[in-house]
């Protein structure tokens, strides 16, 4: 069966180091971190990635009050993506648009706030907000976009831990191919820095980053890495079938060439290099490519001791014999944006199709020999010989792996 080709025609984002693709990209090429110290409830100052977009650009104050941070992030990204896409929204059939957003988790923030709130009133549940349920339903971020843009097509989230950003795009491509929608808003979002529980759990696990300088706290592949910097953020793309995009003369960022989602089935939190390599290989095969055709591998590595090593093992296994592949990491700049990570990290690399520059992995002062993968781009950007295919890894707890490949658009 001949499948429709799916292309990216717009994107909107908010990252800890940029609220637009040009700003984000510029900071990735010039080594500007977006990690800062924030006060986390019960835990004090922690390094975190904080986004500084203006929610009132696209929302009323009342909607910000009633909604969630994830909702505001989603609306900001979706509106920016729509504007970037050039779609004539007034004339568009809103019932043929879909919203597919990856999330690592949703509801922790709002639940913690409510529990804290009633603790101020002797835990009297009469003080529990009636807004709690609409704020915590898992479809909240997508639903808020639907309300804001008047989209009456499908709007839901995909829960896939930290693989979720890629899954938003993959699922959207599938829905476009099935003919379920004509325009997809797809990507991932996270509001996780507002929940102390995520920080506390990583701390208990021995996987929460700390460093006297917050901009140096996220250091994948470095020997002195000590864990994850939790971040918020979002990135939403507009995806369309190629023929629709060409018919309206849309700008095309790239094409969804291939993907794979699989599961380790081995552990709740520990990654599995064998399954990761399998996921990467299957995505490359799905794209009709070979490992030598991949020009950039954007790693998932989160700066945990084991996770980075496991992913490096998987990459070495797949890309041995591919001397020109470039391997980088975006979390070293922005921390781990959880459900947004896959989508945001891909966005940071898409301009490479045009400028052939590969943004580096920063904060690698002392490369861990177990992460010394040929092709790693360390601390300074590098000019690539060719950028025709970008491979984006995102892995998550409970052993979910996702690999997405975007190729240079060619008619």
């Amino acid at each position, binding site marked *: 069966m001949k499948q429709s080709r799916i292309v990216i025609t717009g994107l909107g984002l908010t990252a800890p180091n940029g609220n637009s693709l040009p700003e984000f990209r510029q900071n990735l090429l010039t080594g500007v971190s977006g990690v800062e110290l924030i006060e986390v409830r019960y835990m004090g100052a922690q390094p975190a990635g904080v986004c500084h977009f203006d929610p009132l650009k696209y929302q*009323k*104050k*009342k909607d910000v*009050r009633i909604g969630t941070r994830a909702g505001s992030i989603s609306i900001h990204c979706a509106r920016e993506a729509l504007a970037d896409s050039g779609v004539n929204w007034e004339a568009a059939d809103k019932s043929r648009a879909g919203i597919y957003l990856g999330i690592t988790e949703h509801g922790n923030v709002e639940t913690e706030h409510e529990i804290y709130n009633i603790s101020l*009133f002797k835990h009297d549940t*009469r*003080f529990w*907000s*009636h*807004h709690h349920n609409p704020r915590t339903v898992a479809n909240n971020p997508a639903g808020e976009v639907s309300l804001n843009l008047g989209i009456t097509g499908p709007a839901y989230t995909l829960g896939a831990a930290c693989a979720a950003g890629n899954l938003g795009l993959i699922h959207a491509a599938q829905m476009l191919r099935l003919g379920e929608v004509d325009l997809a808003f797809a990507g991932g979002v996270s509001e996780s820095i507002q929940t102390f529980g995520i920080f506390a759990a990583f701390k208990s696990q021995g996987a929460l980053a700390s460093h006297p300088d917050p901009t140096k706290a996220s250091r994948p592949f470095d020997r002195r890495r000590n864990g994850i910097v939790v971040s918020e953020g979002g990135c939403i793309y507009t995806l369309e079938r190629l023929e629709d995009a060409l018919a309206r003369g849309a700008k095309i960022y790239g094409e969804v060439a291939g993907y794979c989602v699989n599961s380790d089935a081995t552990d709740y939190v520990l990654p599995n290099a064998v399954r990761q390599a399998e996921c990467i290989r299957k995505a490359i095969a799905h794209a009709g490519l070979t490992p030598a055709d991949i020009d950039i591998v954007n790693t998932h590595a989160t700066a945990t001791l084991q996770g980075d090593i496991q992913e490096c093992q998987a990459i070495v296994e797949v890309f041995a014999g591919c001397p020109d592949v470039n391997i980088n990491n975006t979390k070293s700049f922005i921390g781990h944006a959880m459900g947004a990570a896959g989508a945001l990290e891909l966005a940071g690399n898409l301009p490479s199709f045009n400028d052939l520059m590969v943004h580096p992995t920063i904060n690698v002062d002392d490369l861990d020999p177990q992460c010394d993968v040929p092709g790693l781009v360390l601390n300074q950007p590098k000019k690539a010989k060719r950028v025709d295919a970008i491979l984006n890894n995102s892995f998550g707890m409970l052993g979910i792996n996702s690999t997405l490949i975007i190729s240079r658009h060619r008619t």
Partner: protein
Amino acid sequence: MTKDECKKLVVDIIADIAPDEDLSHLKPEVRLRDQLQLDSMDFLDIVMELRKRHGIEVPEADYIQLASLDSCADYLTPKFNALAAKT
């Protein structure tokens, strides 16, 4: 507490519940819903804020008493004064 003071407290709450609204020309005798974009969830917010900020409980059967600023003042002022007398 006077009825005007009570109205001021209610307007303070509404300012937080409906932050986009201009409250400078509110007519006390006209239903709040006819002057402002308030829905049933917003009225629940008003009830919640009365409880949180002032310890005033409004039973569901009495929500209708919150229709206008005047009716709010008629209904809530005695409650505020009774509470003040207790404390």
